[in-house]
């Protein structure tokens, strides 16, 4: 059941992205930024957590989930460290994802080379 919910919710979030690309001529880089920031604020309004509980990976795998994670990290850090948490929360919660992207990104760049397109 959770798999079906993940499929539908994740698919719908991507479809919203597609509408933004086709209708607003937003470049994909802007779409990525928009989704991450959107995720942060949706969680700040406590809207995103229920969606995560409902759809699991359907809500965490899209980049809004990355934003949700950032916001949750900020909340946790502020509750533990107070003012300092404003600065440490975001990076603490996203450390795994960002480090993985950089490490794998670097390794792939070293191993492969760009190929002609047909």
């Amino acid at each position, binding site marked *: 059941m959770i*798999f079906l919910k*993940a*499929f*539908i*919710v*994740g*698919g719908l979030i*991507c*479809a919203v*992205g*597609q509408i*933004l*690309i*086709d209708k607003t001529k937003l470049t*994909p*880089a802007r779409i*990525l930024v928009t989704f*991450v*920031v959107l995720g*942060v*604020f949706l969680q*700040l309004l406590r809207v995103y957590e229920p969606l995560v509980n409902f*759809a699991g*990976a*359907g809500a*965490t*795998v*899209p*980049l809004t989930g*990355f934003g949700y*994670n*950032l*916001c949750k990290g*900020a*909340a946790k850090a*502020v*509750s533990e460290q107070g003012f300092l*948490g*404003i*600065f440490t929360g*975001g*990076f603490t*919660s996203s450390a*795994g*994802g*960002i480090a*993985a*992207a950089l490490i*794998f*990104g*670097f*390794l*792939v*760049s*070293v191993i*492969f*080379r*760009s*190929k002609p*397109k047909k």
Partner: protein
Amino acid sequence: MKNEMTNKEYNEYIKTKTPNSKIFSNCAKAFLVGGIICVIGQCIIWLYEKWGLDKESAATCTSITLIFFGALLTGLDIYPKIAKFAGAGTIVPITGFANSVVSPALEAKTEGMVLGVGAKIFTIAGPVILYGIFASAIAGTVYWIVSLF
């Protein structure tokens, strides 16, 4: 031009000449592929939890796993081929973030490891990290102010 059009008139005119994206079929494809990637994510979460990871660690490990495959498929030149079909279906999931990190770095290898790969790896990831962290700081500030009362 004899029949001089203003810039505004010309831009209105070319809109009638430019075909629109097939938004319905594009959305259907994005829905399908994006949904499938999320289901794969769900399967990976399920696997990690079965192996005894707690919920939060399983979620982080899933992100890392998906990023790994996004990066690898980009290096193998498979990701852009799926993306051509899927559009936002491959841009919005975290694998799309991995693609946007790898693709500029991979291509910049010809300019060396520091100013090529090192600098260009942040071309698209940089803005995402910047605005994501900035938004989280705003959220953190809100939480902090709330905690004072």
